[in-house]
C-alpha cells in the first residue's frame, strides 16, 4: 500500500512535466537523490548540491547551496540550473516557488521513507532526467538486491534485538524509535528495534534500555569516531552497563550509507544484517557500480 501511495505521490509531483532530454545543468538537494542521479550517469551534469549530498565524494567539490531545508533562491539561480531536483524535505516552499517563477524547472521527489518509496521514486526521477531506461534498470537491480536480502533474512532462525543510538551530547544517548530511518534499516536487516514502542529519536532512559538488554548497539561512524571508538562508548554510563557494549557488540556505519535511503540501501541493510546475524549467515549481494566512490 505504501508503494502505491508513494508512486502516486511521485507521479503527482511530476505531473505536467513532459519526459524530456537530459538536463545539462542540474542542482540536487538530498543525499539519497544525488546518489540516484549519479547512479543514472548524470554526475557530470550536476553543478550544485546541498550539504547532505556527500556521496560519491566528487560531489563535495561542487558549489554548495546550503542545507536542503533552508535553500536560497538566488544562490541556486546563480548556478544557472535547467533543473532543480529536490527531496521532499527541501524548502522552504516559497523558495522553490520563487525558483519556478524565475523559469527554473523544479522537480520535487515524493518523501522517501523506506525501500518501497525509494523504488517508486526512481522512475519519476529517471523521467525528469531523460534517463527512463537506466532508471528502470536501477530500480530493478535494487529491488533484486532487496529481495535477495529478504530471502536471506527470512531464513534466519531469530531476530536479534538491537538499538540505534546517537551519543555525542554527553547526556542520555538518543535511541531511534519507530518511524525513523534507523528503525527501517534495523527491520530490513531482520533485527528487532528494542525501543520501537516510541516514535522518533528520544533520549532513552538508561534503566529502561538496560532492562531491554539489546544484543547489539548500532551507531554512526561519526559518533564512534568522535568518541574515540568503543572505549569511548564505555565511558557513557547508560551504555557502559549494557551487556552488548561490555561484549563490544557495537556496529557502526557512515550516516549517509546507513540512513540515506539512496541506491546503496540494499547493501547497507545487508552489511548491517551480516554484522547482526553473523557474516556467514547472510547472502552476499552482487557488486553494483553505484557503490563505487568517485572523488
Amino acid at each position, binding site marked *: 500500500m505504501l508503494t502505491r501511495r508513494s508512486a502516486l505521490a511521485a507521479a503527482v509531483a511530476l505531473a505536467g512535466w513532459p519526459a524530456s532530454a537530459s538536463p545539462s545543468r542540474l542542482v540536487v538537494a538530498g543525499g539519497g537523490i544525488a546518489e540516484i542521479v549519479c547512479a543514472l550517469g548524470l554526475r557530470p551534469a550536476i553543478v550544485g548540491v546541498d*550539504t*547532505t549530498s556527500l556521496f560519491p565524494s566528487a560531489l563535495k567539490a561542487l558549489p554548495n547551496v*546550503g*542545507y536542503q531545508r533552508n535553500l536560497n533562491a538566488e544562490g541556486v539561480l546563480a548556478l544557472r540550473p535547467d533543473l532543480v531536483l529536490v527531496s521532499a524535505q527541501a524548502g522552504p516552499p516559497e523558495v522553490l516557488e520563487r525558483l519556478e517563477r524565475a523559469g527554473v524547472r523544479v522537480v520535487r521527489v515524493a518523501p522517501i521513507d523506506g525501500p518501497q518509496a525509494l523504488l517508486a521514486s526512481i522512475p519519476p526521477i529517471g523521467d525528469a532526467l531523460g534517463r527512463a531506461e537506466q532508471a528502470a534498470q536501477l530500480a530493478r537491480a535494487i529491488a533484486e538486491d532487496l529481495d535477495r536480502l529478504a530471502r536471506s533474512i527470512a531464513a534466519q532462525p531469530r531476530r536479534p534485538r538491537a538499538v540505534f543510538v*546517537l*551519543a*555525542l*551530547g*554527553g*547526556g*542520555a*544517548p*538518543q535511541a531511534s*524509535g519507530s518511524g525513523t530511518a534507523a528503525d527501517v534499516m534495523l527491520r530490513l536487516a531482520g533485527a528487532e528495534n528494542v*525501543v520501537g*514502542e*516510541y516514535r522518533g*529519536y*528520544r*533520549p*532513552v*532512559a*538508561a*534503566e*529502561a*534500555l*538496560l*532492562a*531491554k538488554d539489546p544484543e547489539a548497539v548500532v551507531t*554512526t561512524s*561519526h559518533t564512534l*569516531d*568522535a*568518541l*574515540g*571508538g568503543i*572505549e*569511548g562508548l564505555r*565511558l*557513557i*554510563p*547508560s551504555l*557502559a*552497563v549494557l551487556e552488548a557494549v561490555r561484549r563490544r557488540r557495537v556496529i557502526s556505519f557512515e*550516516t549517509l550509507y546507513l*540512513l540515506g535511503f539512496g541506491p546503496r540501501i540494499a547493501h547497507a541493510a545487508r552489511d548491517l544484517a551480516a554484522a547482526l546475524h553473523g557474516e556467514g549467515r547472510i547472502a552476499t549481494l552482487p557488486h553494483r557500480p553505484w557503490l563505487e566512490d568517485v572523488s
Partner: protein
Amino acid sequence: MSEAAAAIRPVAQRGLRHAGALALLVAVLAATLVLAIATGPVALSPARVLAALAHGLGLPLAVDARDAAVVLVLRVPRTLMAALVGAVLGLAGAVMQGLFRNPLADPGLLGVSAGGATGAVATIVLGGSFLPRPFRPHATTVSAFLGALAVTLLVQRIATVEGRVLIATMLLAGVVLNALAGAVTAAFVFVADDLQLRDIMFWTMGSCAGATRERLLLVASGAIPLFAASPWFARGLNALILGEREAVTLGIAIERLKRFAVVLVALAVGASVAASGTIGFIGIVAPHLVRLARGADHAWVLPAAALAGAILLASADAAARTVIAPAELPIGLLTALIGGPFFLVLLVRQRQAVDYR
C-alpha cells in the same frame, strides 16, 4: 548605621539565626537523595537498593549484578551530580543577583552558558577526530568547560578598568560576547547534519545522564572554591545592597569581591555546564524561593539557595529519567516546565517581597 553595621556582622554570628531553617533544608535534601536513588524505571525494592548501596560501600554482600549496575552506575552518580549541579546553579544565581543587585541576574549574563554551548557544539560537529583517541570521549566536556571559561574571563577582562570591575560595562560586554558566542555556535549548527543537530538540541536542554566519576570530580572541583568563598561573599553582598560606595566605607574590599565572585562563579558554572549541558531556571528560582521564605540576608540566601537548587534538580532528574520511560525527558525542559509556573504563582502572590532591596 546600626542597621548597616548589623548587615555586615560576621556571617558565622548571623548564620546562627538561620541554623534551624538550614538544618531543615539539609534534611529535605537528604530525603530527596534517598528517594531519588530509590526511584527509577527498573522497580527495585528498598531492601535491594540498600543491599546494592552496601555492596558499593565495600560490604561483603551478595548482590545481583544488574541491581548493582542500576544503583551504583546509573542512579547514585547522576543523583549526586544533579544535586551538585543544582547547588552550584542556585548559589551562583544568588551570588550574581547580589553582585548585579538585580533579581533577574544569572551566570548566563557572563556568557558561561553561551561559551559552554559553543565549545560543546564545536566538538559535536567537528567530531574531535583531530584529538588522540583516549581524549576523545571527554572532548565535549572539556571544550564546553574551556568555552565557558574563555568567554566569561573575556567578559571580566573587558569590564576591568585599572583594577576596577565596572558592573554596567560587564553587563554590556556579556551581551556582546553572548551574541558572538551564539554566532559561532550558529556557524557550527549550519554545517551540522540532521543527526548532529539532534545531539546539539538535547545538549542545550541539559541532562545529568552522563554522570561519571570523572564528571562528578570536575563539577566538584569547580564548585568547592565557590562554596568555600560563599561566607565571605555573603558579608560583602550584604554590604553591597547599600551601594558600592557605602560598602567600601564599611570596610568591604569590593573590587576583590567582584573579581573573585565572577571567577569562582565562572569556574563552578562552567564545570556544571560542561558536565550536564545548559539547565535553566534553577539559578533564578532557587534564590527567589529562599528569599521569599526568609528574606534577603545573604547569610541565609547563599547556603539556602544552594540547598534549594540541589533539592530541585535532584528531584527533577529523578522525574526526568522515570516519567516517560523507556524515553527520558530533557531535564532543562522539566526545570522550566515545573519551575516556571511555580515561580509565577509566587511572584504574583508576593510581588512586593520579590524586590529584595
